[in-house]
């Protein structure tokens, strides 16, 4: 997995490339921990996210909880496979997907 991030004022854009799973989720978690302070808008770009497992969902949920308190979180470019995972797990109702 590769993470591309871009902080623009209070807006943080994070592009996740590859697989978000047990092995790689801690990497994304560390990125959020280190960069989410003071961010009012967090945009996750999943255009090149291949798939995610529950380890990835855990990190996304934690980020959503933080952003619920300090601003908003938007997920964009969600492919069909990922969307189905969000549907099955009910995450579709707690995330903002554009």
């Amino acid at each position: 997995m590769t993470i591309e991030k871009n902080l623009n004022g209070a807006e943080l854009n994070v592009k996740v490339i590859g697989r978000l799973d047990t092995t790689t989720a801690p990497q994304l978690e560390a990125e959020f921990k280190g960069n989410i302070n003071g961010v009012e808008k967090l945009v996750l770009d999943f255009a090149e996210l291949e798939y995610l497992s529950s380890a990835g969902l855990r990190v996304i949920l934690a980020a959503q909880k933080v952003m619920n308190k300090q601003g908003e979180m938007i997920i964009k470019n969600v492919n069909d496979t990922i969307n189905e995972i969000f549907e099955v797990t009910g995450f579709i109702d707690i995330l903002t997907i554009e």
Partner: protein
Amino acid sequence: MKELTIAATVENIETVTNFVNEQLEALDCPMKAQMQIDIAIDELFGNIAHYAYNPEIGQATVRVEVVEEPLSVVITFIDNGVPYDPLAKADPDTTLSAEERGIGGLGIYMVKKSMDEIAYEYKDGHNILKIKKNLN
């Protein structure tokens, strides 16, 4: 039938995934089914790596069998760690808000939803978890 016995560690999830994917590619497995199987490996082998022998490191065996008509693949995960039936757990409530939500049970729930069959047994000191996915 092909089988891989390997140390049950998080680092080895990738090795197991590659091993299974090789068999799937030989079967012209549809991309979506392969991804669902890869996710299942992450969840199931990941569980063994985290919990079966903790804090020790033990071995786990992953077996891949192909069944004809309809073409399906059966993947069996075997470890001799602490007895644990992941299917005994109640399904998570997927209607809760972000604040109310925990993450427990979500992995196995995703596997249940994406596979055609899932079965667990504890036999002769082994946890045996079997998943089956139809490929067409």
